[in-house]
């Protein structure tokens, strides 16, 4: 085994320039590939995470400027199977600069720990949140980005609403649905806004995930033909519909990814074909001293795989480091806001690299290995 490894390495080093150029070409393509697939992968992961959720999102069916009345809270709470209801309103303020935007949402505090036990609230955070009217809980991504600390007072300037809110950070959220966001209390919002009594979305928790469709249908039925109709969906469907807004990006990213893989395949196949072409007579000699066609084939494939793996590793490393360095929460890439490279994406990228590396060497090498010895030795170029 070891001697074959040495043989593969020697062959790779024989045409150093070609090996390096091929690896670089693949690294560059795989770098872009990993960034492109991060969006769809991130989306799928999010959907998988919420698949067995017992939460329902009950939102307005009419439009963004058509909020629901807060009086719905009581009606929803008395629906069978409902354990908790948390109304929320999107405030969307600006912290310092206009580009420093992250979602800020006003929620009723009483039931947030029952509703979102999976969010990883910091200890005492929820308790403080229930006690202090101007309290807010901040996602850890936001804490890191703006170097905030618990106890700090922050001001958010309203964009949709013509007023500002001044909040005290009482705790953090470790595993919320987005890396960067903040929640504060809806009673504070209502007071500042002059008691409009509005709700964008009711989060509803039911006692059994089997009851989700039934409760969602019951809610929509209850509010049908009123002046504020609702659309209730399971959390997975709700998240899917939010992500669905980025459909065109997902499709584009997917199509581009496929195109890039084709390009990598062409580059790798070209390299394999070139090195095989140069070693035709060498292959014949190896065959005649007893190497089987199969062994020669696997040697070529191993060479290609080594290059693909190196290219993949470099590409993934660069994208990983880049995302780490400029934690893309700065919304430089628009809809790609606050996306990180999940480990799954790195695994996907490496897998794609290896598959392409294998296939691109397999076909030219098989043709070369199958050629009869006499024929190959006779071929002089």
């Amino acid at each position: 085994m070891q001697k074959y490894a040495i043989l593969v390495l020697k062959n790779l080093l024989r045409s150093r320039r070609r090996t390096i150029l091929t690896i670089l070409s693949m690294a560059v393509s795989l770098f872009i590939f990993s960034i492109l697939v991060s969006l769809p992968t991130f989306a799928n992961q999010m959907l998988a995470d919420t698949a067995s959720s017992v939460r329902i999102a009950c939102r307005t069916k009419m439009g963004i400027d058509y909020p629901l009345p807060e009086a719905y809270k009581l009606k929803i709470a008395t629906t069978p199977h409902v354990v908790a209801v948390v109304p929320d309103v999107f405030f969307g303020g600006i912290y310092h600069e206009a580009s420093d935007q992250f979602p800020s949402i006003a929620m009723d505090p009483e039931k947030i720990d029952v509703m979102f036990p999976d969010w990883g609230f910091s200890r005492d955070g929820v308790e403080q949140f229930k006690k202090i009217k101007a309290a807010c809980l901040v996602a850890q991504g936001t804490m890191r980005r703006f170097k905030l600390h618990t106890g700090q007072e922050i001001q958010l300037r309203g964009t949709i609403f013509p007023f500002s809110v001044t909040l005290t950070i009482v705790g953090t959220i470790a595993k919320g649905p987005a890396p960067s966001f903040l929640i504060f209390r809806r009673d504070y919002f209502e007071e500042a806004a002059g008691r409009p009594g509005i709700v964008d979305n009711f989060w509803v928790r039911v006692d059994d995930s089997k009851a989700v469709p039934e409760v969602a249908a019951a809610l929509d039925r209850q509010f049908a033909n009123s002046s504020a109709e609702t659309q209730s969906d399971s959390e997975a469907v709700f998240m899917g519909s939010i992500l669905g807004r980025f459909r065109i990006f997902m499709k584009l990213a997917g199509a581009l990814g496929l195109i890039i893989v084709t390009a990598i395949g062409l580059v790798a196949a070209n390299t394999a074909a070139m090195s095989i072409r140069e070693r035709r007579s060498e292959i014949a000699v190896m065959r005649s001293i007893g190497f089987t066609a199969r062994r020669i084939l696997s040697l070529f494939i191993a060479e290609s795989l080594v290059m693909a793996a190196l290219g993949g590793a470099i590409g993934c490393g660069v994208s990983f480091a880049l995302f780490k360095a400029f934690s893309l929460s700065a919304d430089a890439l628009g809809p790609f806001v606050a996306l990180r490279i999940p480990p799954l994406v790195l695994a996907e990228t490496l897998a794609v690299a290896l598959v392409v590396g294998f296939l691109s060497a397999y076909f030219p090498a098989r043709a070369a290995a199958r050629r009869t010895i006499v024929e190959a030795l006779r071929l002089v170029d």
Partner: protein
Amino acid sequence: MAIPFKYNRRSLFVRRVSNLMTGGAVAIVVGVFVAAMAMVGGLNSAIRDTSSPDNLIVIRSGANSESTSLIALDQLDALKFLPGIHRDAAGNPLISPELTSQVFMPAADHTLDTLPLRGVLPLSKEVHDRVHIISGRMFEPGLSEVMIGKLIVNQYPGCSVGSNLRLGRRTWKVVGVFEAGGSSFESEVWADLHSLQEDSRRGSSFNSIRLKLEPGADIPSLVQRIASDPRINLHAQTESEYYREQSTITARLRVLGLLVAGVMAFAAIFAAMNTMYAAVSARTTEIGTLRALGFSPAAIMTSFLLESSALALAAGVVGIILALPINGFSTKFNGAISSPTLAFSFHVTGTIILQALVFALLIGLAGGWLPARQAMRLSVVNALRRT
């Protein structure tokens, strides 16, 4: 003397498999470039064409767009009779107070597309002079009637003349279809201002005021007046300025597109270098012979550069042809939750094709440069001896 191009053409043909693969990679990169630019161009023109050069848009000071702005009725009244505003034959100032609303339309997989619903007055058509009704008629004020932009016709249930369209709290009757010179208005629904104020329960407030300027109006002083008059205190700017600021999303997409195409270009350059280095080393004897025949080193270098450029250009043409079918392909674009669905189509323009050809040529030159220099530097004796 230059080496005839016939030599390059035949050489390219000799190593056709390798050249085809490299050309394929270059074609893909150029195709991606064309598609990205066509998308950005289409989005840009959808946003930019919305402006009329002699229109001002007035919003709340501090608001960054129409949808986050709020204007009260008395502010409108104070603004109405400022100098510099164009008037129609009856002497009415051409002012259009507007209310924008993002209403939901059910789309596939429980997604709610946001559709911009704009409340306007019958007079607004004079302010937005690029809006023309192409079928049906204008809505009647006071009735629940709407007209729709031509890009959303038949895109959603009820989007055709004579149908009932369910939006917001009520059912509207679609009475007309308008076009607006390819602008984003073409993906909007226009309703009577007062009906929409009622439907969305927003009293007598507006989001923005558009006004048509008199020819030769003093824009800076009007803007100044609107900002400093204590009864008005609003932010005015020309529509072209406003829409330029609003198109940040396309600026980002452009960066993204260029980034992908640019980084992929390096992959293509490396591939081209590989092929050209292989070509140089396989043709070492030939190069020696050419030198012995009296061709200068510069001629050799030019010849190899020409060869890689020709390969890349041919691949570029293929890439452009591959990307052409997306021309005119129209789709919907959703940005953030609060921004409306924008319909736009890909535009492959002459400029983009030219840029793509230059892009391909650059890939060819960059990929051929080092190998060609190596070919130039081969010594005649060594090159000939290596057989």
